[in-house]
Structures are given as structure tokens and as C-alpha cells.
């Protein structure tokens, strides 16, 4: 399979997954999109093995390694900032913990209705994942330029 055909299939799979996501939300069935995503990834990995590969030499490996390390280096800081902010947000509200106290008049016990909002957590994670991909792409371009990609040559 040609490389461009494979990219077209990735795009097509993405569109199908968006449709499945929509159906999954409509049916309130998270397992639908989860299974569909897993199947799509397995199929794409299997198809990738049939793609005619360009030469992947040591320079492209060095670019990939540098970009991955730089992405990890920046991403863990951003991930920590978001996480520590979320922890502060979580502990800034009543936790619903009832502390045993002796009978008689005392402060009113606060009962929190409802549990954690996992949907918001998922959105934040998707945002962070998107940021990770953008960071990796940016660093890849930076290191590709640094190690001589797009160099004009007289030949």
C-alpha cells in the first residue's frame, strides 16, 4: 500500500470514529466508542505493516528521539501544573467526609451530593493529549531543521 493511501485511510477512520462518538453519546454507551477506537487502532497498525516504507535512517531516528525527549520534558511540567491545579480545586470544596463527633448540638454536617465529574476529567485529558501531539510535532520540526532537513543543495 502507498503511504498516501494509508494517510487517506487514517482520515477516513477519524471521520468514522467521530460518527461513532456521536452515536455513543446519543446512546449513553461509552463502551461503543471505546471498542470502536480499539478496533480502529488495531486495524491501522495492521495496515501500517503493509505500507511501502521510506528509508528510515539514523538521522531520522535521532530526530525522533530528540523530539520525544523534549516533548516529555515539557509535557510533564504542564501535566503537573494541570494536576496540581485540579487537586487544589478538589480540596477547596467540601469533601463529604463526615467526622464522628459527640452527640449534641454542633456544627452542621456538610453532605456533598454527587460524585466526581469524570466527564470533565476526560475532556482535560483529551486536551492534554492534543497538546502533547502539538508539542511533539513542533519539536520534530525544530529538530528536523536543526539536523539538516529542508537544506537547499546545488545538486
Amino acid at each position, binding site marked *: 500500500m502507498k503511504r498516501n493511501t494509508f494517510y487517506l485511510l487514517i482520515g477516513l477512520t477519524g471521520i468514522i470514529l467521530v460518527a461513532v462518538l456521536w452515536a455513543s453519546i446519543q446512546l449513553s454507551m461509552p463502551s461503543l466508542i471505546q471498542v470502536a477506537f480499539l478496533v480502529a487502532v488495531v486495524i491501522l497498525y495492521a495496515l501500517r505493516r503493509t505500507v511501502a516504507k*521510506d528509508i528510515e535512517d539514523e*538521522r531520522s531516528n535521532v530526530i525522533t528521539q530528540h523530539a520525544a525527549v523534549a516533548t516529555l520534558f515539557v509535557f510533564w511540567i504542564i501535566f503537573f501544573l494541570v494536576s496540581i491545579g485540579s487537586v487544589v480545586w478538589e480540596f477547596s470544596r467540601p469533601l463529604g467526609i463526615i467526622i464522628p463527633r459527640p452527640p449534641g448540638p454542633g456544627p452542621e454536617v456538610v453532605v456533598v451530593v454527587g460524585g466526581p465529574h469524570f466527564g470533565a476529567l476526560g475532556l482535560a485529558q483529551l486536551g492534554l493529549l492534543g497538546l502533547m501531539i502539538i508539542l511533539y510535532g513542533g519539536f520534530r520540526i525544530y529538530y528536523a531543521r536543526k*539536523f*539538516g532537513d529542508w*537544506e537547499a543543495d546545488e*545538486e
Partner: protein
Amino acid sequence: MKNRIKVLRAMREITQEDLATALGVTRQTIIAIEKGKYDPSLPLAFRISRFFKLPVEKIFFDEDAEPPAP
């Protein structure tokens, strides 16, 4: 690190594409090495050395050092 690959190629009338194919790398890598943007690994340096039938130190040299005599 500097090198004499471009000169050696010209002397033998070898294109970057031919050299890249012989060494199993991309033409972009040859361009990057010739321009000093990328220092090859030791295995690749030795492959280049074998290709040109010259010692490594006759092809690659330190930036502060004088180029080796051909």
C-alpha cells in the same frame, strides 16, 4: 565536525543519491553531513570510510584542526 565527503564525491563523480543508496541512508542525510548539520554515528562513519577506501581521520576532522592532506 567537518568532513571532506563533498570533495571525495566530486573526485569520484558520485552523486549524493548514489552515495546515500550505497550507505543505506537518505539523500537528505548525506546533504546534512556534508553541510555539517549532522554528525554521523561511528558505524556510519566507518561505512563511509570503507566506501571511499580511506581512513576515517582522512574524511572527518575537528573544526579547529586543519583539514587532512588528501
